[in-house]
């Protein structure tokens, strides 16, 4: 049986495991119909021109992890921001791990989607927000929606600042040789609230894991969100990340995506606005080698006047790695005085590495400032000569220049411990020990 068939056929078994009286079940059924009709995207779809899922979906995967596989904290400690105190929502092979997690209901809710779906007190939030910004006619989003069961549920009430950063970590253990995971996250920052969130997906040993994740984020009036995606998985793991944000007036949201590994990674990042004076930031550093593949597909939909968006992605590709940046800015007729900026700069370090960069601007308002730029280049020879003439060996010199190229994105990282972590991951990825912490 084809995997797509299996996904459709297995839904009955899935229904037996959940409470189909919960508030989202009708949405699940509707979503399944969408997926049944559309199936997986193929390269015939314009949005998937450069990324084929064939290699992934021609295999078979376990859909329902049987039980929790315990893992020792000391073995996974390094994947956490252990230097500081954080809230943690941790999943192992898709199953919540109470042992590794640190959740709360004390003034704010940092817990599980399954809990939020089953308890009446969360009903109002689920009814108001769940499925309201995720694009249900997107087949992968629909697939995820149809299997909604588990994930992170975060609700920061009005005027509350989450004092601790929140970590969402998904581990896959390899106990199942191949596994298909579909976490579903809902994050709501109510008026004038603030939160910092770090999301990671991590395989603990090489095996076929595909994560098709959907995250809906609501940043209400005057709220402030600072979100970091750390994508540094093994090169046997793939991730399809579908993230949808809806911002209300005077809110600020920034998402940094650090892509340093994985077999195929697709980031569908969508920002929508409802209200004026909204600030949206989408930034990323991608450093890939081997045959790793990344596809950044961003959308900023300016539907309201006086809003700003900043996109800046830096990509560094070695060996046979592949990068795609497709950035779409849509400015509706109503969205006068929009200020939208987009930049994608890429370095190709080897002959076989490729980059496809495609900025798309559709502007229907006449009083806006929009700009975009793409560059694809190589390391500056003179700069390399400068470093080598000071005694720095060629590989270290390349690494230093590569780091320098990506550096300005790191300047936007607000959490020092995250910045430190990213720097060491970058140094690791570049394979250098420069004798100082970057």
């Amino acid at each position, binding site marked *: 049986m084809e995997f797509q068939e299996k996904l459709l056929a297995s839904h009955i078994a899935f229904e037996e495991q959940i409470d189909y009286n919960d508030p989202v079940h009708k949405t699940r059924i509707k979503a399944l119909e969408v997926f049944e009709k559309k199936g997986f995207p193929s390269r015939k779809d314009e949005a998937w021109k450069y990324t084929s899922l064939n290699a992934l979906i021609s295999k078979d995967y376990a859909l329902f992890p049987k039980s929790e596989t315990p893992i020792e904290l000391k073995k996974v400690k390094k994947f956490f921001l252990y230097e500081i105190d954080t809230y943690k929502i941790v999943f192992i092979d898709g199953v919540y791990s109470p042992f590794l997690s640190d959740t709360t209901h004390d003034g704010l809710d940092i817990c599980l989607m399954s809990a939020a779906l089953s308890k009446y007190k969360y009903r109002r939030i689920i009814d108001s927000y769940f499925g309201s910004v995720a694009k249900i006619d997107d087949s992968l989003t629909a697939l995820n929606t149809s299997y909604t069961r588990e994930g992170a549920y975060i609700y920061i009430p009005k005027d509350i600042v989450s004092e601790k950063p929140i970590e969402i970590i998904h581990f896959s253990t390899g106990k199942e040789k191949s596994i298909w995971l579909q976490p579903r996250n809902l994050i709501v920052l109510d008026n004038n609230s603030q939160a910092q969130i770090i999301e990671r997906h991590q395989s603990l040993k090489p095996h076929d894991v595909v994560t098709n994740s959907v995250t809906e984020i609501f940043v209400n009036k005057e709220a402030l969100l600072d979100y970091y995606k750390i994508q540094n998985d093994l090169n046997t793991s793939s991730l399809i990340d579908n993230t949808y944000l809806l911002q209300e007036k005077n809110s600020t949201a920034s998402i940094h995506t650090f892509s340093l590994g994985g077999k195929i990674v697709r980031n569908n990042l969508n920002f929508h606005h409802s209200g004026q004076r909204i600030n949206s930031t989408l930034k990323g550093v991608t450093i890939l080698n081997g045959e790793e593949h990344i596809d950044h597909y961003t959308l900023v939909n300016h539907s309201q006047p006086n809003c700003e968006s900043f996109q800046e992605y830096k990509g560094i590709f070695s060996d046979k790695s592949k990068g795609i940046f497709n950035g779409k800015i849509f400015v509706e007729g109503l969205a006068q005085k929009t200020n939208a900026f987009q930049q994608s700069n890429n370095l190709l370090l080897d002959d076989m590495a490729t980059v496809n960069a495609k900025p798309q601007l559709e502007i229907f308002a006449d009083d806006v400032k929009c700009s975009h730029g793409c560059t694809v280049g190589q390391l500056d020879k003179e700069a390399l*000569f400068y*470093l080598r003439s*000071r005694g720095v060996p060629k590989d270290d010199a390349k690494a230093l220049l590569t780091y320098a190229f990506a550096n300005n994105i790191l300047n936007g990282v607000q959490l020092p411990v995250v910045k430190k972590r990213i720097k060491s991951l970058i140094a690791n990825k570049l394979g250098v020990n420069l*004798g100082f912490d970057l």
Partner: protein
Amino acid sequence: MLKIKNLHAKVDGKTILKGINLNVKPGEVHAIMGPNGSGKSTLASVMAGHEDYEITKGSISLEGEDLSDMDAELRSHKGIFLSFQYPVEIPGVSVTNFIKTAINATRKAKGLQDMPANEMLKKIREKAALFEIDSKFLSRSLNEGFSGGEKKRNEIFQMAMFDPKLAILDETDSGLDIDALKTVANGVNKFINKENAVVVITHYQRLLEYIVPDFVHVILDGKTVKSGSKELAMELELKGYDWIKEMV
């Protein structure tokens, strides 16, 4: 120390150097002068080992060791330092960290351990004081947003830190006002001793009022056409290069 004999070199298929001769002994300061496009900066790049330049004829050696097939980093480890006309900006890497990386890379190549952090710091402080460089400057990203003068001062500061056998100063005076020029020249003069040597590449005689050369060489169209004492530089300043062209 440095011997260059009948050196020919090309870049992108074009021959730029067509017969350079130079013999530098320890304790000497040599000035290389010439009009724009004569090959001065090419010579600097060839001496420091730029990959794009291919030596087609002649030889270049340091203390009897042939340099022609040696990578830039190896030449640096052997004691050659080039002060760049246009130093490169490296955002995110501080002056201090860069110097640490470079010094320890050289030590590693020589089979030595990393310089202990406190020793490094002491040396950096000592040399920084010598060049009137304050500690804020040291923690700034290398050359990023530096003024022309700061960049050149930083180059000379690095020279003092690395303590090379042979320092090549490529147009170190360009873009400097008179005060910055004096500071830089003062740094070079403090660096010079009986064991090392300096090659100053310059377009104008101005710098040579502050760094006094023992020998002056004139390059025209990739050839060393005339050598003399420091008075030659004065003569060039007065008469320009045309009279030498006619002589040749």
